[in-house]
């Protein structure tokens, strides 16, 4: 997994030329964008609510260790087995241990970005445990052998025709391309998996410290099946998902679905506090929570701490001019869009993902819609500066930039060189543009501007802008 400049560019080219993808991106991001505006508009004061959530998130992170300990204590009291995982390998190892202890051959999963982050499916498969995704979008991309291309809508890039093809291959019979028929096929097939699975794996949208509960937000109800039908449930939870109290959680929930899909609440909001009680009609006998760090605590106290406030709503993706053209797979990480461009290098290393901080025009649309006002453009700038400091950018970039800065530091040097260049480009200039043969123009088909016949300073110094008054 990596995203270098050539990789980003070639994936972007593919995405831009993919008509299906372009249609899907236009369609879905517009629904989400307008839905969000409408849903927030129905709140009395959504701006104040955003400020409130921001305050909750930043104050929680300021005392994260304390809240994590409270969560552990309360979860243990509710009968949950709590595990602490330093990184993805450790978390996957714990999952596999639990599965083996129960002789699990097949595990059902509800949608979890953290499991994408630590590649849980691959680890399970390698250990001989078959993971089955049960969120419709996740199941589709699992069948396709792909990564999610959107944080909340993982199969945003697939058309229903493509989905029907995948289902036909999986089920060994032709499947209709109509959406109700497709969802029905999924429901039929997945229901059998829920009943047969020995283990349910989920992530968590929140972990509420005061009661040791985890909260799952879904639209399909599969999260409920995953966490109640199999005898064992394991939730893998990033440590930044902590929220101290239910009052705080309520603020989070008010903004999460509104920001993500424009819904006031998602269809299902499930609260899980421990395994089934003796008098419960159903529910798992064992519930485990794996609290995963995986470089999250590294960010605390750094210029990137704010990124831990993210609630994974995906609002920044739907407004990002880059994401909307290139699609999620171009980022080469389960986390795409502006938030992915910041988080992925922090999780997987800046070297190897050096193109991502540059996959932005710094337009600021992400900051404008972020429910917790994460200043993603500032962090992209920070990462870029880190690339310069750590010499991750190619040497010629550094040479060119330093040279340009020293030329620009003196107006005399600058004008002298600009005037020289002016004469040189004259023969290949027409109508304000450089007329370069296609192959010599790195921006083609865009015309690059040429230097004007005279600079403004020359016009000024010749006294040609007389005062009309």
């Amino acid at each position, binding site marked *: 997994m990596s995203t270098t400049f050539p990789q*980003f*560019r070639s994936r*972007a*080219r593919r995405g*831009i030329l993919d008509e299906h993808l372009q249609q899907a991106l236009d369609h879905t991001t517009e629904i989400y964008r307008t839905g969000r505006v409408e849903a927030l508009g129905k709140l009395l004061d959504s701006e104040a609510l955003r400020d409130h959530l921001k305050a909750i998130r930043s104050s929680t992170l300021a005392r994260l260790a304390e809240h994590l300990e409270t969560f552990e204590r309360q979860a243990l009291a509710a009968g949950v087995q709590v595990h602490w995982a330093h990184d993805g390998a450790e978390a996957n190892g714990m999952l596999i241990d639990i599965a083996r202890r129960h002789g699990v051959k097949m595990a059902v999963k509800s949608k979890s970005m953290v499991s994408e982050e630590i590649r849980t499916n691959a680890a399970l498969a390698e250990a001989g445990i078959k993971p089955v995704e049960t969120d419709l979008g996740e199941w589709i991309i699992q069948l396709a052998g792909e990564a999610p291309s959107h944080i909340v809508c993982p199969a945003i890039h697939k058309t229903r025709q493509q989905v029907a093809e995948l289902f036909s291959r999986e089920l060994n019979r032709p499947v209709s391309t109509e959406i109700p028929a497709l969802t029905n096929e999924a429901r039929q097939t997945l229901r059998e998996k829920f009943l047969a699975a020995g283990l349910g794996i989920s992530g968590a949208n929140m972990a509420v410290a005061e009661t040791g509960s985890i909260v799952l937000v879904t639209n399909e109800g599969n999260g409920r099946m995953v966490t109640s039908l199999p005898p064992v449930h394991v939730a893998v939870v990033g440590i930044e998902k902590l929220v101290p109290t239910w009052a705080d959680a309520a603020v989070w929930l008010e903004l999460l679905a509104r920001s993500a899909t424009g819904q006031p609440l998602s269809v299902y909001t499930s609260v899980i506090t421990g395994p089934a009680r003796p008098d419960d009609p159903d529910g798992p006998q064992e519930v485990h929570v794996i609290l995963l760090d995986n470089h999250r605590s590294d960010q605390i106290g750094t210029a990137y701490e704010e990124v831990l406030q993210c609630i994974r709503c995906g609002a920044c993706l739907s407004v990002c*001019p*880059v994401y*909307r*053209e*290139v699609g999620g797979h171009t980022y080469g990480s389960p986390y795409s869009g502006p938030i992915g461009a910041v988080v992925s290098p922090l999780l997987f290393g800046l070297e190897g993902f050096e193109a991502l*901080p*540059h*996959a*932005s*025009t*710094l*337009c*600021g*649309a992400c*900051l*404008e819609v972020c429910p917790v006002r994460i200043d993603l453009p*500032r962090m992209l*700038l920070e*990462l*870029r*500066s*880190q690339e*310069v400091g750590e010499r991750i950018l190619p040497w010629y*970039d550094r040479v060119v*930039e330093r040279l*340009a*800065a*020293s030329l*620009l*530091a*003196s*107006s005399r040097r*600058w004008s002298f060189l*600009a005037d020289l260049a002016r004469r040189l480009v004259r023969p290949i200039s027409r109508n*304000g*543009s450089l007329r370069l043969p296609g192959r010599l123009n*790195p*921006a*083609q*088909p*865009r*015309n*690059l*501007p040429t*230097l*004007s016949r*005279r*600079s*403004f*300073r*020359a*016009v*000024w110094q010749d006294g040609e*802008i007389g005062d009309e*008054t």
Partner: protein
Amino acid sequence: MSQSSQHSIGSRQPATRHVALFVTCLVDQIMPEVGVAATRLLQRAGCQVDFPTEQTCCGQPFYNGGFRKESARLAKHTIEVFEAYPAVVLPSGSCAAMIRSEYLHLFRDQPEWHERARRLAAKTFELSQFLVNQIHWQPSKPPNGSTVTYHDSCHTCRMLGVREEPRLLLRCAGYSIREMAESDRCCGFGGVFSMRMPETSNAITAEKLRLAADTNASLLVTVDPGCLMQIRGLADAVDIRAEHLAVVLEEATR
């Protein structure tokens, strides 16, 4: 309003307000007509315009590229060139935003420069912002029958909060405005982004042009030379011309 109040009774001198024009590198070298138009507009608005010839670049390209040291060098140069003037006006929202907000981040660990940057920031304005909010100037022309569409440049609208000022000036200059869908959707420039990621940059620009052309306006107006340069680079493909607000206003108020 303030224009006439600046006339002292019996004075034959027009009201003056001393401003330094920071023309920005793109305007200086690529579109000097924008600088000429901005100067004339400021003069018509009663300003005495100075062009400090020592000026070069605000440092934004370096800052956005991650080259903080180089950026700080140019920022210091810019502060030294402009700090003595009562006001600094730029025909570029993006460069104005660099000075008004990013210099403060750039110098966060250098108290002396931070203070000087803060003072400069407080008196630095994008052209339309200065004309409308600082000196309350606006033209008064009858409708001229032309319809334009206005592109909200990212840094102008999101960092400076300037959305209404250019529209007000255009309307007062006789233009009617037909809004394009998502007028604040990025043009695809992003400085060095346009060269590092040219395919993506071009795709974003093509989308912008499509939305602008959908309005059937004859002209796309922007206050940012960066956007203008980017948009013009692909404008051959559509039936709409792009122009800087200063040039449009200057022509309309002659």
